[in-house]
């Protein structure tokens, strides 16, 4: 069963998720909340359900995510590590933009920590 697409809208942020075959997450705007896990958790659970049902790949498009605070990045990092290390693993591709310094610096470091199941494309 394929879950319908999800669109989450918050002030300064839009998250779109689709679950056809592979999972595609697109984030646009700014993540700056003190507790983003409160509204991210249901979406992360949807993604984990899709992976559990057989989606073996996921694309997380961050090109239009201008800024993410450390709280948000901690949640993203821990979640990606869990997805990439599950059995069987989910292969995740992060699409990043060189326009955003935080992405150019943080994402290669994250790839080194998570492992080869995580790929980073700088576009």
């Amino acid at each position, binding site marked *: 069963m394929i879950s319908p697409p999800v669109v989450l809208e918050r002030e300064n942020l839009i998250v779109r998720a689709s679950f056809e075959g592979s999972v595609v997450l697109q984030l646009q705007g700014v993540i*700056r909340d003190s507790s983003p896990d409160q509204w991210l958790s249901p979406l992360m659970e949807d993604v984990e359900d899709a992976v559990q049902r057989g989606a073996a790949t996921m694309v997380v498009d961050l090109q239009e995510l201008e800024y993410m605070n450390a709280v948000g990045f901690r949640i993203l990092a821990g979640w990606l590590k869990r997805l990439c290390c599950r059995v069987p693993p989910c292969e995740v591709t992060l699409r990043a933009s060189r326009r955003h*310094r935080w992405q150019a*610096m943080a994402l290669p470091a994250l790839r080194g920590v998570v492992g080869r199941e995580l790929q980073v494309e700088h576009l």
Partner: protein
Amino acid sequence: MSEARYYLVMPCDWERIEQVRRSVGPCLRTIYGNRAICDAVAMSSAELLENAMKHGAAEQGLVHFSLKAAEDGVTLRVRNPAQGQPATREALRAVIEWINSFEDPYQAYVARLTEICEQGGGEGGLGLVRIAYEGRARIQCYISTNGIEVEAIFTHLED
């Protein structure tokens, strides 16, 4: 010589952090030609304000933010007039000492990320580590009767 100064005494209101972050970048672009340092200082402004507001500013209600930018570097200071709990003060001091113990802040960044990924640890200073790594800044803290002040000095102004 070009110079910019930015000083705010602001309420402990999380919503205002984004306004500061968004205004710091354009302010710095009047001095620096490259966008990298502007983005790094803007990010660092937001992270230091988040820390100040999370750790005790509500006791006093006001956070002091200052930025001085000149051709030889940027000095960013955020002061929280609240003393906070002794454990909070010591944890802050310990995190900064830990970061400064690494020759290359990239190593500190990877170590903190590894801890988060492997042990599901809390944020535990990731904001400060990213200031040191992404901003290539030197971080210090000062604890006195005036409160807790964290300073980040940026001298790597090239891309």
